């Protein structure tokens, strides 16, 4: 814990990441209350169709005259929910697989690792595409699909960490005391694995947010919600690029970039803090 605090105190990236993610989380919570319009409300006037930014519509309107700013604000919540829940599914599945494989070893480990390898070899976006197109384009299915394709990293990381902790002397001491495997996993392995799991979760969150954008862009987003990916998708379908309606797709993309960057900054800072080589090793050249 001390090293994590220290890392965030000294790293500008860590601070920036926390700030960005913090702001977006607040936006996700209060968003619907501060959005100037109902994002679904279409315009009555023809001038309000695909209108560039103005005082009334700071980020302009879409092809139905809906307010883009409100869509982006509403999209914050959806995007973060998808990102965080998918990441939570992924790390829980991954941690269970990784710790089990690492601790028990042998045949069980070999089997679980082959399963992990096969998921790692399947391009996760295609896998997610298949799952969502087979299951249907709902928020839950999207979360499930992303979560089920992103667990492999967590599994590999936790397995490696479990293998190394299992060999640590304090585990041997616990065994000498007569502690059983579940006691050792709960009291000795998990507490030492969790910081890494947490670091991985921040990374997977950013990957999940990107994945959601990809799925939405390919037409597999939940059509009943505004996520940032879906806004860009609509912009693409409308031909916003060729007519130069930059205000349509620029804001959502910037939001994706900022949030993803924020989470990866946090993840990098955690990684550096938790990497014993980088923490203790000295560089002389």
């Amino acid at each position: 814990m001390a090293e994590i605090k220290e890392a965030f105190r000294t790293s500008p990236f860590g601070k920036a990441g926390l700030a960005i993610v913090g702001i977006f989380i607040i936006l996700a919570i209060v968003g619907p209350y501060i959005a100037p319009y109902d994002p679904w409300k279409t315009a009555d006037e023809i001038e309000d169709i695909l209108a560039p930014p103005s005082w009334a519509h700071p980020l302009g309107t879409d092809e139905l005259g809906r307010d883009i700013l409100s869509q982006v604000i509403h999209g914050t919540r959806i995007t973060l929910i998808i990102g965080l829940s998918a990441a939570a599914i992924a790390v829980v599945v991954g941690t269970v697989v990784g710790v089990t494989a690492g601790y028990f070893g042998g045949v069980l480990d070999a089997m679980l690792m082959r399963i992990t390898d096969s998921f790692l070899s399947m391009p996760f976006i295609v896998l997610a595409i298949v799952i969502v197109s087979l299951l249907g384009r709902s928020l839950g299915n999207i979360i499930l699909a992303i979560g089920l394709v992103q667990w492999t990293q967590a599994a590999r990381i936790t397995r490696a960490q479990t293998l190394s902790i299992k060999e640590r002397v304090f585990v041997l001491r616990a065994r000498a005391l007569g502690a059983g495997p579940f006691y050792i996993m709960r009291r000795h392995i998990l507490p030492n694995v969790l910081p890494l799991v947490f670091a991985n979760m921040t990374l997977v969150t950013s990957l999940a947010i990107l994945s959601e954008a990809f799925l939405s862009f390919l037409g597999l987003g939940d059509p009943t919600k505004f996520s940032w990916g879906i806004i860009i998708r609509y912009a693409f379908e409308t031909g916003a690029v060729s007519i130069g309606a930059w205000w349509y797709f620029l804001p959502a993309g910037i939001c994706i970039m900022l949030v993803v960057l924020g989470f990866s900054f946090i993840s990098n800072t955690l990684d550096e803090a938790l990497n014993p080589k980088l923490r203790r090793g000295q560089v002389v050249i």
Partner: protein
Amino acid sequence: MRYLLRRLAESLVTVVLILTVTFFLFRVIPGDPARILIRGPGITREVIEHYERLFGLDKPLIVQFGLFVRETFRGNLGISFAYKIPVLELLVERMGNTLILLVPATALSILLGLFLGVLAAWKRGRPLDFALQVFSLGFWSIPTFWLGMILIMLFGRTFSTGGMITPGVEHGSLWSYFADLGKHMFLPALTLVLIMHGQYFMIMRSQLAEELTEPYTRTAKAKGLRAGRILRAHVVPNAMLPITTLIALNLATLVAGFITIETVFSWPGIGKLVYRAILMRDYPVLQGILIFLSLSIVLANFLADILYTVLDPRIRYR
């Protein structure tokens, strides 16, 4: 040798598992089991019956699975609803187009990423590292298609942005053909390089940063070697060893990038095909692409492991 045999066995198990996952995805999840792969508008009764027989659709699942594996290894991935030709044919045709775009773009992003990664790790914690991290991670955080859209908006008039070549134009020489191709390729390739180099940057930076903490770098410095030589002769080659396998391991992450970039730039490759298949619910094509790409990645990983084994004396002489 022993190690490679083990890796070969592991890769085979992985292949079987991939086929199993695919099989169950397409036959167990959908409400109408098994048949979504052979049904579709415009497919004749005879074709359907042929495939029902071939894949044993009235038999128990386990038999079906066996037939599925057999047919897959024969190269029979079914028939596309949309194009009405065997999926494999379609894939092979489109794969070429994808590779034309993807190979140079990937090679460039690996070179750029590794180079910047070396710089950043060497100057870790100093302003250059800071700037490079913002640059590389910043691009990494952008959805590919979005950057593509921006580039089209900004440079769409200078460079061609639809397809691989200008349709309807007769090219007098090979040279003018390549010039046209290059004009079409520039923006999608640039997008891919800008975005994809980030992951290689991060891999190299962290690998090299760890490697730099190894005491042998101190020995090298004590021996009177200058920093450039220490990096060139000792640290970078050592960091590159695990990176060969890490690059192969990360191949799967390229797919999202090229699928959407082909969609944005109407590049007639695998990615465009995926997009069409989603729109048309062309499940045989989706299944084929999933199998095809997964097996390619397994193969690439295996090859990278062989390379690693050959390159690293710690494994070679064990």
